[in-house]
């Protein structure tokens, strides 16, 4: 299995605060990696580094054949391959659901309006929101907005999808509908990295769990690792979540 994402000894600080302190992990094609850990453990920062939203100070990051650590990186090329979904959805409020999804395919891939619209309806159907195409984001629930955000990323046919605490702002019922969409994606073979607090979801869907603590990868293994942690910190973390 070839690595789609490879972080090696990644260092990153915000001022004097070392957020990533030698982080290394790999994610292979079709794998679903769940990055877990306390707030402030550096997991969201690690995810943002993969997409070049943050620059790193040391180490290397390779994503879909792009050397992300390289100063000469063409970010737009990287982002054609990598989709990201944020905690706060970040839909464009002045555009309808359909227009939100059509924007990147028409601008970046130069798709015709009609083709982009067909594509939008296709991805909306995949997230179960085919009937909401003409709505504005504010007319949708949080869960629906997040599913639109996922559809918007999907429309660019990324090779890798990043999810940054995408259910943290949602109530349990809405969380469920978003997780179901993500599970379908995983089953469809999408390579995914998710920063999440949903332990049950990580255990069930992730092929790999990366536990981060104090800016380091503390423990990594399959989903079942959560049932028999080897480090006291992970035991603590998992225990406190129950």
């Amino acid at each position: 299995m070839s690595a789609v994402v490879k972080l090696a000894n990644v260092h990153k600080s915000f001022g004097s605060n070392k957020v990533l302190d030698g982080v290394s992990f790999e994610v292979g094609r079709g794998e679903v990696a769940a990055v877990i850990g306390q707030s402030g453990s550096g997991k969201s920062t690690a995810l943002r580094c993969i997409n070049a939203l943050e620059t790193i100070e040391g180490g290397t990051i390779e994503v879909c054949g792009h050397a992300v650590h390289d100063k000469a990186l063409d970010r737009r090329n990287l982002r054609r391959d990598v989709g990201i979904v944020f905690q706060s959805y970040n839909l464009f409020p002045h555009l309808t659901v359909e227009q939100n999804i059509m924007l990147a395919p028409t601008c970046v891939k130069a798709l015709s309006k009609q083709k982009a619209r067909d594509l939008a309806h296709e991805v909306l159907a995949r997230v179960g929101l085919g009937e909401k195409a003409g709505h504005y984001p504010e007319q949708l629930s949080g869960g629906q907005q997040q599913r639109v955000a996922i559809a918007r990323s999907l429309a660019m046919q990324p090779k890798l999808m990043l999810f940054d605490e995408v259910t943290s702002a949602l109530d349990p019922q809405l969380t469920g509908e978003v997780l179901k969409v993500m599970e379908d994606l995983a089953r469809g073979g999408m390579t995914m990295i998710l920063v999440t607090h949903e332990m049950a979801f990580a255990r069930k869907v992730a092929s790999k769990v990366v536990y981060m603590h104090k800016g380091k990868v503390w423990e990594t293994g399959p989903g079942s690792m959560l049932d028999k942690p080897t480090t006291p910190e992970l035991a603590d973390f998992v225990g406190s979540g129950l």
Partner: protein
Amino acid sequence: MPTFSAVHLEFIAFAALWTIGLSAIAFVGGGIVGFAVALARISHIRALRYAAIVYIQVVQGTPLLILLFLIYFGIAIVGFNEVPAIIAAGIGLTIYSSGFLAEIWRGCIESVPKTQWEAAECLALTPWQRMTRVILPQALRIATAPTVGFLVQIVKNTSLASVVGFVELAQAGKLINNSIFEPFTVFMVVAAFYFAICFPLSTWSRSLERKLNVGRR
């Protein structure tokens, strides 16, 4: 001695057209220059950014009156002896309004949440596409009220154009008063004209604000 009559009213009404015309020149010219300066002000090219900052600071730190003098006499020094007053006043007010509009619009552009910039960037949009398709449409809603509010300032500040010999509302009032010596009557009429121009603008601003707020979080 003659008193205030329909002839004077007609003269003032005609001058009001010049006030409106000069305001339009200042707003369109200032808008074009100001927009370019606003973009330069947030450019990632350092030299461009600093040039914009200096421009804004100099313009905002110069009284419009002095600016108008400088332009009027400056153009004469460069060699154009007979500068029409409208051109001097138009250039002066264009520079003046561009310095303020640039800063107002920069604030509006930057007040679009950072997450919107990131989301657009992560969809592989070019900086230009991000600006025109995602940021500016949202900034426009934010900018409407302060922009039209500033338009009211422009209208009132055109009165300073009288110093370079431009006959607009205020200057027309002065001329009439010089002949009939009824300052209170004359300037009440002039004030009423200014109000008649500015009040619809403020009302328009409010209605635009309401309209543009539809469909926004």
